[in-house]
């Protein structure tokens, strides 16, 4: 059992959620509430990672953030670290790969709020920020929760993008799913089996937790 790999996986999942949720809530709400030019393009761009093979996504990320690219050099100059083959790079890649899993449920969550509820909140004297915090966010909460769970679960299972961008550095970019592949290549079926079972248990527990939480949230409408 590769505990370091498990820890990398869990940190990556948590980090992805921490980065993506605030952004996803902002963008998801924007897409749900506002009509603006270029909305279709934004929605398509958000969804692209869903249909693109992970290797293609990884390839473009490498090209964009590679040591020879302007973006990669700029990042290196600021952070003092290059993105490819580092945990930070993995986090950036994971955030982009998970965009659709986060934005879409949140968007649906905000879309499900009837417009007269929004209007009523304004007519109760709530400022736009109070409306968001006290009415909209609590009502969109099931969508936000779903987004977090999906992103976490998807990050644990991500393989292609991680392999392309992060490689297989122990303690840095070797996630559990990479470690399983690594062990299988080395004919270490036992370790691979233990780690696969661990991922399975985490997945099942996560899903059970989701169900419980969303039931407790219990904002069944009407």
């Amino acid at each position, binding site marked *: 059992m590769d505990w370091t790999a498990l820890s990398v996986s869990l940190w990556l999942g948590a980090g992805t959620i921490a980065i993506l949720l605030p952004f996803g809530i902002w963008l998801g709400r924007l897409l749900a509430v506002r009509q603006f030019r270029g909305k279709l393009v934004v929605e398509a761009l958000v969804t692209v990672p869903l249909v693109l093979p992970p290797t293609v996504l990884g390839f473009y990320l490498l090209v964009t953030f590679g040591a020879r690219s302007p973006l990669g050099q700029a990042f290196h100059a600021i952070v003092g670290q290059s993105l490819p083959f580092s945990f930070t790079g993995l986090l950036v890649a994971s955030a982009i790969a998970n965009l659709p899993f986060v934005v879409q449920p949140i968007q649906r969550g905000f879309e499900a709020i*009837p417009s*007269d*509820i929004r*209007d*009523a*909140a*304004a*007519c*109760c*004297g*709530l*400022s*736009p920020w*109070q*409306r968001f915090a*006290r*009415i909209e966010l*609590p*009502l969109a909460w099931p969508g936000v929760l779903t987004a977090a769970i999906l992103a976490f679960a998807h990050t644990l299972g991500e393989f292609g993008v991680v392999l392309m961008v992060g490689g297989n550095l122990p303690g840095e970019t070797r996630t559990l799913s990479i470690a399983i592949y690594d062990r299988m290549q080395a004919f270490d079926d036992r370790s691979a089996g233990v780690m696969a079972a661990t991922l399975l248990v985490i997945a099942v527990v996560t899903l059970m937790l989701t169900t419980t939480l969303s039931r407790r949230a219990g*904002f*069944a*409408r*009407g």
Partner: protein
Amino acid sequence: MADRRLSVSLRQPSPIPLDLEFTCDPGDVLAIFGPSGSGKTTILRSIAGLYRPGHAVVMSGPDTWSNTATGAFAPPHQRAVGVVFQEYALFPHLSARGNVMTALGHRPRGDRRARADELLALVHLADHHDRRPRELSGGERQRVALARALAREPAVLLMDEPFAAVDRAVRRRLQDEIDSLRRTLDIPLVLVTHDFEDVVRLATHLLLLDRGTAVASGPLANLMSRPDLTWLREAVGLGSVFDARVVRRDSERGLLELAFAGGALLASERAIRVGTVVRVRIPAREVILAAREPSGLSLHNALAGTVSALSSDPAFDHVVVQLTVGGVSLLAEVTRDAIARLDIAVGRPLYALVKSVSIDVISSETT
């Protein structure tokens, strides 16, 4: 009065055509009446600042809420406006109390809970504080919505089809409650409805709307006795509406004695306290005209008056005769033949005969 008067002027050719202006004084109830899709809700939304028509001036007393000419626009949360939405739009994740407290942001934090409970008691929901909207009946939701709208201490109260989602029995009670409430509120109340019963029971003023355009507006009694409003007549049947005071209850004879500007009226008995001001509606079809005061009839009401207007509608083949009885207009719908036989013309004195059971007495004080 004018210091808290609501005045509204809205104009735009599209996408939702609007062409109207009106004022509503504190204590008055203006009903905006028209068929579905005539732009009624858009008017309320414009007053609340939820919709911005091409040309709009909305003033609440001295405060300008919208003025497209100067570019002034106060967003909804800065307007002292209480809105009861059509489907109530209660916050599903909050209790009845939580819903009301949401609109109490202008009060000190420590007072809000007590004030919310007070308001819920006012709408007869004292024991439902902790219920979520889904645990409340339609009528109870409406009451929470009303308490929430009042919580803001609004300068204007707006109600969009407030009774559309409740059944008939509940509707009656709610109408009466709102009627007695508005007498104590002393703010302009604008009500949108496509049900004329709401108008008759609650409104003091009426604005008739057709495809966004005000067809007619004014005090209810004046409008109801205008025979030229064919469209209104088709919708509700023509009739006169005026206020009267209960003078005596005669249980022995089963009669209610009323006094109005034109004299006395006898209606069938209702449990209404003496001294109460009630609204009376007499359908034009129920009024018989006579040249002399008749005798030997079962009839209770023979009112002497003078013909003030005649109007005929070829589509109906009937003539509507407007009779002035002591300042009140009574309408009678009769055939052309009757006009010829009685030689009815403007200025002719006539008697209007009304059965006591034909008089519709509307009161918020029924028990």
